[in-house]
């Protein structure tokens, strides 16, 4: 099944530093808690791993990331991530276009368009949740991305951003995080998501 997502994340920093960070692939990948670059093949091909947790369900994906295009003119990055869960029963593919747009206040926005395709058991059985999960994974990505960029800078914002980054959980807890973004209280994230009953 395919889910199309269209996002904009405000970043309290200059477009130039956002674009600088956007080209740091391992850094960008790191914006997804639970995601990491496990191997750099060349500067446009990487291997990575993601561990996603949705309530009682956990899925671990290993896959390849290909940088299709880096357009300094448009300050746009086009990447495709393809992964299979470690049991080989499901697979996911994300075609992501991300670009930086300056805003009037001297800050910038990260804009993202993504098509997420899921196949296998996860699509057969998890379809009911897929849109929410993908949406929230991207929200999480955007929030971390913004923090990373801001953290490059100086001052209070940067300091807070660094704190938030430090507090990121080790694995992706898409729904809980998305709600934290949605409800705007990051702290309550921790401990959320775990439901104590079968």
């Amino acid at each position, binding site marked *: 099944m395919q889910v199309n997502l269209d996002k904009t994340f405000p970043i309290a920093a200059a477009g130039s530093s956002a674009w600088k960070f956007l080209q740091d692939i391992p850094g960008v990948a790191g914006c997804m808690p639970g995601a990491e670059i496990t191997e750099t093949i060349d500067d446009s091909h990487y291997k990575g791993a993601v561990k996603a947790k949705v309530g009682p369900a956990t899925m671990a994906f290993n896959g390849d990331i290909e940088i299709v295009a880096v357009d300094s003119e448009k300050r746009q990055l086009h990447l495709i991530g393809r992964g299979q869960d470690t049991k080989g029963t499901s697979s996911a593919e994300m075609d992501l276009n991300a670009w930086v747009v300056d805003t009037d206040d001297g800050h910038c926005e990260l804009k993202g368009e993504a098509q997420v395709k899921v196949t296998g058991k996860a699509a057969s059985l998890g379809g009911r949740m897929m849109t929410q999960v993908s949406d929230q994974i991207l929200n999480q990505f955007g929030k971390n991305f913004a923090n990373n960029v801001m953290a490059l800078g100086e001052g209070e914002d940067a300091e807070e951003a660094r704190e938030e980054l430090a507090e990121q959980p080790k694995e992706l807890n898409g729904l809980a995080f998305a709600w934290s973004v949605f409800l705007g209280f990051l702290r309550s994230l921790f401990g959320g998501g775990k*439901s*104590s009953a079968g």
Partner: protein
Amino acid sequence: MIPGEFEYHAASSVDDAIRLLSAHEDAKILAGGHSLLPMMKLRFAEPAHLIDINGLSELKGIQLDGDTVRIGAMTTENDLIASEILQQHCPLLVDAAKLVADPQVRNRGTIGGDVAHGDPGNDHPAVMLALDAEFVIRGANGERVQAANGFFLGTYWNALEEGELMTEIRVPVSKPGTGYGYNKLKRKTGDYATAGSPVVLILDGDVCREIRIGLTNVAPMAIRAEAAEDALRGQVITEALIEQAAEQVMAACEPAEDLRGDVEYKTHMAAEMARRSIRDALARARS
């Protein structure tokens, strides 16, 4: 469909369960098991430890305590249906339990598990909102009471903290002038609701003094249609007002499309279930 390996712990008491929960990484509580075990058999869930609380009689049973009915978290659906206390003081819960899954599952499935699991398709969360219930939650550092309103935060996400356990559900006994309704649309026995709506209202003469409208499976979690409630509270409820409320119900929905229907259908069905429940509640309150 075979679950992955795990270590099994039969808790000897609530405190023991809480101790086990904090002692083990990646531990899950096993209540009725009809949500968790299928996920484990499909290998979506692979907890390293299962803490079975089925043996804890202290978590079972229904008591009338003044103007509150106290229900142990491990009370099964069929126990709810059979309870004379509930039939008399909280019939909504009985009606709702009758529409959960099927007879065998109702013998295992528990109210606490249904409330705490976090699946937006579960029946009890919206019922808890409509009843204005409270949850007794125990953790390593003692017991706390949390209102149902505000407990449900998202799909598989609620206000239970790491290592906490829900031990009791408290529902107020229905006061004079109270009416209730529960309508649930499902494809077949054993299915999640396409949409469901429990409603509780209190009439003061002809005027609706209080009303709570819950919605099942039309948002990432069970929700209350507050704008719809506002449209009816303090009013003499007419069909025209019910229509206004139905509009507000639709505005409150953000369902996920699946084989049960698309967003438009589920949104309309939420409204229709709410309409019917409001009418039922009115009729009961007046009789």
